[in-house]
């Protein structure tokens, strides 16, 4: 039998996993340890081709359902008439009609102190289970919205526990009596739980399975109600996910798809004979059908459709369709030339050369101005998760280096002054922020600092001598942001700007001479558009440079000194909330004070800006959200119709 578990590197793991109760269908890939098990060997950067030999002669038809207000947090089920979703214009729970794309709000939210989150429709389409943030409790509840019946519209709270940070309803049991949700607990462990409907007297919520800091996703139950499919990252070091199926009535589990690329559980065929899996093992996200028998892969997977870039599985329907989102948002890194006054004198162009990368929010110029480093998602099947690479491109856009550190989430990158290393801001397997030095010659990683619990470090700025790291962290006492300086040699922390209820710091930039810090922070009343100030790195006097006009606000995170220290680049955005995607204009604020000057650069979704060391070019990252909703006709295998549901 062939399996969907890619080429073996350590075949002896199979025996080990078998002893653990994890059935394996054949060879194990490098990343194929059991959920909750210890890490397998680190996978290489390239996806291997996998063991797929069959493909459908005729790829099923797909059609776009909607391209407006598509929310990828909500799922469909049953007949597939609706997708549960969040209406992000109001925070309400809403339903999208998958026939005509229309949206109906279910709740009537008043303000943004409360709002909906992940949602899943029951198989009979009578209920929507959804997460709801309750401001007075400062936590999410799991709620139930009856769509029909005598209690239609009467919201019930079905889970409200102090130990639950976020409940994510994803599926329902086959009998429709319980909601299956993943929850993140306050101790950061993740669990799959089954929450009964209120009609079940005396029933209590059950914990099906506990995982560690990693979370399972894409839950779906087989039509006979016996098997639960999900995906999960097998290692703590990277973000690639494998697909598993566990028995709901015991302790058996099988690895269905394992490779060094992302493998995602999409859903079951209506007869339970196949599990649909999305995988990037062939280099692009593609949909496969894996034959199943007794909770195990029982034959060769069949390629249904290739090149489904940016897909998010959203559920399968009883009529056989597969519903999925496609991320159509824009993530790019643009560059412009600047004249001596700091004004753009060219059109902004992308440095990504048309690649399908999904860069993060920040690029960084090398000290010699010859290269740009940035973080990017490798693959895009699930878009916001998964492994990250660090790419270094020459100024002429040529990719010169791609690094795949054993880190699952790298958020920011900057250069050491001598060009020998990169400073990475990442998160460890336990969700804690890390500052790391990555040697560019050897690739070796060294941890400079691990954040304390709940301190949410961000905005790292390294001093030119590499000995001091300035960043923003939430204070332990007030849980408000403060600016701190880390002496890397001694590990000692010093508070540069204390946390204050009247001043929430949102961005930070170290001046070229390392004497001052520019900080973006809120107004005293927190109602305005923010203030740009500077202060000595030793602490003390905070000098206000510019306060945003009433109609504008400083863009979060957009702040950069000019190389000569004469001014600070910041982003200004309209405060008119009626604009869905307002442009951000880059402005130059004189360091000595005075009115900001436009740099002649305006784009939607600017997230950061970096000026080259010679001051003649600037790069800025843009991120504009966007998604489409698509539906795929039932795949036909061997001439037969393979219908799907749930």
């Amino acid at each position, binding site marked *: 039998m062939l399996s969907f578990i890619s080429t073996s590197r350590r075949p002896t793991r199979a025996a080990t996993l078998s002893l653990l*109760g994890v059935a394996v269908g054949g060879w194990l890939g490098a990343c194929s340890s059991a959920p909750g*098990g210890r890490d397998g060997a680190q996978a290489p950067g390239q996806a291997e081709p996998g063991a797929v030999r069959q493909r459908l002669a005729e790829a099923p038809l797909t059609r776009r359902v909607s391209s407006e207000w598509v929310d990828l947090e909500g799922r469909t089920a049953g007949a597939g008439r609706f997708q549960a979703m969040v209406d992000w214009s109001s925070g309400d729970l809403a339903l999208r009609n998958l026939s005509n794309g229309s949206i109906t709000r279910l709740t009537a939210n008043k303000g943004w102190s409360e709002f909906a989150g992940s949602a899943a429709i029951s198989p009979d389409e009578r209920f929507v289970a959804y997460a709801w943030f309750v401001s007075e409790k400062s936590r999410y509840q799991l709620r139930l919205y009856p769509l029909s019946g005598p209690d239609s519209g009467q919201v019930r709270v079905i889970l409200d526990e102090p130990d639950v940070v976020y409940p994510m309803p994803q599926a329902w049991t086959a009998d429709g009596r319980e909601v299956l949700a993943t929850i993140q607990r306050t101790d950061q462990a993740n669990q799959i739980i089954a929450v009964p409907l209120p009609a079940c007297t005396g029933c*209590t919520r059950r914990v099906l*399975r506990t995982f560690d800091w990693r979370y399972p996703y894409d839950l779906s139950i087989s039509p006979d109600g016996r098997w639960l499919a999900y995906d999960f990252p097998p290692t703590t070091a990277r973000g690639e996910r494998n697909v598993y199926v566990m028995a709901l009535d*015991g*302790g058996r589990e099988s690895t269905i798809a394992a490779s060094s690329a992302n493998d995602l559980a999409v859903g079951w065929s209506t007869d339970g004979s196949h599990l649909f899996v999305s995988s990037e093992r062939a280099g692009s996200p593609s949909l496969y059908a894996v034959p199943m028998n007794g909770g195990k892969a029982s034959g060769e997977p069949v390629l249904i459709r290739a090149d489904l870039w940016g897909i998010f599985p959203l559920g399968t329907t009883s009529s056989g369709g597969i519903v999925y989102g496609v991320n159509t948002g824009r993530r790019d890194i643009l560059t412009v030339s600047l004249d001596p006054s700091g004004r753009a004198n060219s059109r902004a162009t992308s440095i990504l050369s048309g690649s399908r990368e999904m860069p993060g929010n920040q690029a960084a110029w090398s000290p010699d101005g010859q290269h740009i480093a940035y973080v990017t998602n490798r693959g895009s099947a699930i878009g916001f998760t998964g492994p990250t690479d660090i790419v270094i491109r020459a100024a002429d856009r040529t990719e010169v280096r791609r690094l795949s550190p054993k880190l699952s989430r790298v958020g920011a990158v900057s250069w050491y002054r001598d060009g020998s290393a990169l400073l990475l801001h990442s998160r460890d397997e336990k969700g804690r922020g890390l500052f790391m030095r990555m040697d560019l010659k050897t690739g070796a990683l060294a941890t400079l600092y691990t954040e*304390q619990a709940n301190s949410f470090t961000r905005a790292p700025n390294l001093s030119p001598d590499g000995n001091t790291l300035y960043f923003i962290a939430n204070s332990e006492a007030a849980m408000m942001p403060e600016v701190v300086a880390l002496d890397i040699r001694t590990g000692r922390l010093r508070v540069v700007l204390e946390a204050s209820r009247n001043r929430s710091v949102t961005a930070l930039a170290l001046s070229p001479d390392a004497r001052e810090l520019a900080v973006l922070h809120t107004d005293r009343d927190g109602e305005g558009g923010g203030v740009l100030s500077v202060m000595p790195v030793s602490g003390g006097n905070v000098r206000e440079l510019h306060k945003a006009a009433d109609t504008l606000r400083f863009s979060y995170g957009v702040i950069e000194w000019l190389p000569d220290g004469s001014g600070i680049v910041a982003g200004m955005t309209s405060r008119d909330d009626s604009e869905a995607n307002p442009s951000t204009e880059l402005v130059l604020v004189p360091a000595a004070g005075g009115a900001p000057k436009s740099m002649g650069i305006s784009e939607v979704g600017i997230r950061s800006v970096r000026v080259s060391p010679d001051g003649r070019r600037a790069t800025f990252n843009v991120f504009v959200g966007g998604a489409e909703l698509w539906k795929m006709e039932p795949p036909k295998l061997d001439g037969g119709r393979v219908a799907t549901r749930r």
Partner: protein
Amino acid sequence: VAGLDEFMPHPEDNPLTAERVAMGRMLFFDPNLSADARTSCASCHIPRHAFADTLAVSRGTHGLTGERNTPSLINRGYGRAFFWDGRAVSLEAQVLEPVTNPLELGLTLHELERRVLADPRYRPYLRADRARGEPVRTVVARGLSSYLRTIRSGSAPFDAWGTGDTSALSVEARRGMALFRGKANCISCHIGPNFTDEEFHNTGVFAVSGDSGRARVTGRTEDVGAFKTPSLREVARTAPYMHDGSVGTLEEVVDFYDRGGRANAALDAEIRPLGLSVEERRALVVFLHALSGRITGH
């Protein structure tokens, strides 16, 4: 049992059955399965002590002294590594080792099989597996591991608090829980409902005992002195603590970690001085007591 997973992994060829559990229970308490015919698994894994004992290191057949502290068997069905050094990867692989260890039960596998076959109480349980040609030792391992999977503890005050009973934990216990998850950093190893990451960490205890721990299994220098994180379920009932039983009370355990363990070249990066106040250390101990609940499998 509240607070615990329903999913408990087991090998495909050893599903949990009432017959296997009954046989395993009988084996567990049977003193005849030892060299002196007076020692059983339960001699060290005493039910009223949460299936641990009160000695620093275990005492086996003929009164011989073992090498390490008897670990509690609570919730081991959820485990992924067994023994302090993790040398067994499943319960089935683990359960026969103490039987053949000369310092524990001291039988050969051949003698174990002979005694089991000679005991008419076991015959009904052996029949089906033996008919399939399974060796007696395999049937014994399946029975013992099945019984161990029924030894569980949950439904503790901590679990009641977790499902919304805010009165289940005292103010001091809640303070202890916050420290456990925050300043004291216990959560970095003792995570999840079973309060263990099932991984191996060097906290410095070995610097006195000289036991190289996980390195005995892996042969790797970086594993010297690393031992498996024990579950904290019922921890208030399993003193003394650490792999060598060298720490007598929970208060002393907390003090040990507050000092940052014991310095050595391979000290785990998570172990560092905590700077806890007297009140904070006391609150942590109060929280640890809230992990005692209802034990099944007696």
